[in-house]
């Protein structure tokens, strides 16, 4: 698959170059994501993130929080933190179905600094819906997966989609730039329509695995 390799090679170069400017890219990302209405927090210790999420959930009166998979919950020490706050946790497709969670926790595959977007690339419906149905969407983003420009973001998106498409595998990827919004009635900007009303992004230390892996 020479085409895929070419794309991968370019992506790799981009990623190498971005790593050298990781922190300036991050500050651009933070500014843009917040301008779009998202809330970004940088976390040093992933294990502490669970407590931040729990505090957030509590402040918003959330009773059920749902994460895409048990690994994610474990990485963030989410269960312990939520129990302490008196909030229930569901992981993976929940026996409670998809309609109850007030907060959905997912990973983000990457970030794009120029637009403040995160790439939510979740092919499984149940996981993907956690970024769509709850009032609050919490996304975990690794610092070294944030690229600088929209063009680089599209290069990555092309790579991810092409990789599955060539194998005949479907995929579903969204760039999410802030919480859902409308201005359809008298052009009054209103946050939170069909998608989340709040978008919280936690930026975790570099994962060191390379982008798109």
């Amino acid at each position: 698959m020479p085409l895929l390799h070419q794309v991968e090679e370019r992506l790799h170069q981009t990623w190498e170059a971005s790593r050298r400017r990781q922190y300036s890219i991050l500050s651009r990302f933070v500014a843009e994501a917040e301008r779009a209405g998202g809330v970004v927090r940088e976390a040093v210790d992933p294990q502490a993130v669970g407590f931040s999420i729990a505090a957030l959930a509590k402040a918003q009166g959330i009773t059920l929080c749902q994460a895409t998979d048990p690994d994610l919950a474990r990485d963030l020490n989410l269960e312990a933190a939520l129990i302490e706050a008196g909030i229930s946790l569901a992981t993976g497709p929940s026996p409670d179905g998809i309609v109850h969670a007030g907060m959905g926790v997912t990973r983000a595959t990457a970030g794009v600094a120029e637009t403040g977007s995160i790439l939510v690339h979740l092919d499984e419906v149940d996981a993907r819906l956690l970024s769509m149905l709850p009032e609050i969407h919490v996304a975990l983003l690794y610092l070294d997966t944030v690229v600088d420009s929209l063009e680089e973001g599209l290069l990555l998106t092309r790579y991810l989609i092409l990789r599955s498409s060539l194998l005949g595998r479907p995929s579903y990827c969204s760039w999410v730039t802030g919480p859902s919004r409308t201005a359809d009635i008298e052009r009054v900007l209103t946050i939170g329509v069909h998608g989340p009303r709040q978008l919280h992004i936690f930026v975790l230390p570099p994962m060191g695995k390379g982008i798109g892996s």
Partner: protein
Amino acid sequence: MTRQEEFRRRAAAALANPRIRENLGRFGIAYRTARQNALAVLDYEGERARLRRMKEDAIERLPELARQFVEAARRVGAIVYEAKNAEEANRYIGDLAKAKGVELVVKSKSMVSEEIGLNHHLERLGITPVEADLGEWIIQQAGAHPSHSVMPCIHMSKEEVAGVFSQALGREVSPDVGLMVRLAREELREKFLNAGMGISGANIGVAETGSVIIVTNEGNGRLVTSLPPIHVALLGYDKIVPTIEDTAAHLKLLAKTATAQHLTVYTTFITGKTGAAQVARPREFLGPATGEMHIVLLDNGRWAMRDDAEFREALYCVRCASCANVCPTYRVVGGHVFGHIYTGVIGTVITPFHHGWEAAAVPQEACLLCRACVDACPVEIDLPRMIVAMRGRIVKQEEQKKKAKGIRRLFLDAILPNPSLFNLALRLAAVMQVPLTRGRTVLRDLPGPLKRLTRIRAMPAVAARPLRSRVAKVLPARRDSKQTVTFFASCLIDQFYPEIGEAVIKVLNRYGVTVHFPKAQGCCGLPAYYEGHKETAARMAKDLIAALEPSPGEHVVTATPPCGITLKQYIPKLVKGDPRWEGRGQALAARTLDFSEYLVGVLGLGEETFGEPAPHKIPLTYHDSCSALRGLRLAEPQRRLLRMLTRYELRELDEIGECCGFGGHFSMDYPDVAGEVLGRKLAAIERTGAAVVALDSPGCLLQIRGGLLKRGSPVQVRHIAELLAEELD
């Protein structure tokens, strides 16, 4: 009813509803600033050139890209159906829904579905389609049609919307926007969860991967494509591009120009079957993403548009609605008048291909050819050029059906092209008007059938003696003559404002320029061209080339920018392909300069003032004519000349570049619409507190001076040439 009468009828209905122009007017102002801010972060010209190239290339390679798209989509499990027309697309989707036992369909915004009337078709089959985009849902509940392609219910007030909500939900809903949005979320959430099929449009189709890209702010697009077990994506062939990377300029410019965002909230890339396996019922897993995906690729006139050299560029449109947002007449009448099923300017231009020429004939009248939309379009689509091309075809069809109106045709095709006849007609008018003018130079109220001409503004009287009778054939410079020019006067200056012509000649003479005035010159043909009488316009182009060719001026100078455009741009096009005329047309174009451009560019004026500035300067504002600003790309020379004046100080308008609503025949045919446009201009002039309005085009002068006179305003309106001549006294 002629198309002009029908347009007047529809426009009158829109004008009777002040809500439309209030909302659109307010939006137009806010849009201007928001858009500017959003675009400030990028190189607009560079990005739009990139987008244009990408779309040109994609449409050029469409046969190959479409094949690639279909194959790639099938590889990831999508079922692709290529529909030739609306009936085929409707039948496919309807049959599919029936076969799968679907009763409820949720839809994210799809203009193509409006194009083919899909909802109607589904309803006839007993299937309930529910629009999930908030604006579309409101419109659907109200049983109305969208009036704007990005903001479907921009013509409605929140009170009206609350009425729609109350009706739809069966209880009283107060006009609180936040509350209504929340209620819509709840109401539609139920629909998402219970629908058996989701239908989406697509902003882009990607050939390489078979992905469809859907851009939404509300999040409905993602739910429509994830929750129901069947997803149908409906898109036109024109949306296909080579790769995901090719969409960069498209995504950036769409968000920035459509909604002044850096990026739309959700940009979703859907590749193959990724929906739920079953309808989501609470307390059930949805299971793996194995839902069906169907892609309906629609022709319905698109391939014909691609093959039509005059209209191909309409396929480059990214549906940002900028062209509507900046259009002075759209902002008065809205998308129900300016548009058919597709609204606004681009909507009108593509209507013939999707819904037939009959459907487009009336809405296209709304264009007064100010070219604001071309500058605003992120793909630089020349919409007014296509409007003129449409008019040409419509006029032809009407002639064949003998629907054209006698007097109009007589004037455009027989009197206007004949300089002596035209002169004679106006001389006759000059005599006949005497009982009305009683010696005055303006007519405030014309009687009887002419009443329409003075509804919104006073009209100038026809000059007692036209310029051609007032000046000699050669007007030598006083001092040693350095240059010679040929003056092309234009009908307006010749017959209505000879004093402007005299001022032009005076200024040129004073700067050492000998002016030649060939008396054989007539009208440049612009009225015929704009009204779609292309053959007449071509005939007039040749007459004018022949009249100006022997005149020795190094340059042809005009002080009427719209005619300058004709000489520089339209005439070469009109005689193109005619071996006897093509070269001569180009030569005329190359020789022609606007008055200001000549003074600044050739004579080097504008470096210093005429003398000591007066102690108390009079505030003056400048109105850019659409023709000079966007047609000839001239804005600086005029300002340089104005800064030479000792008695005036320039105060810029806050809405530079807005049309005055003259538009040649437009303001004569549709004074009520033109009057609203003029009203905005006059208000902007008043806001500057200027005592004098300077301008460079006699058409704008007619409109603005007439409008101010009608209002009883003391503000004076002068052509730049007159102000310069005054300083030379």
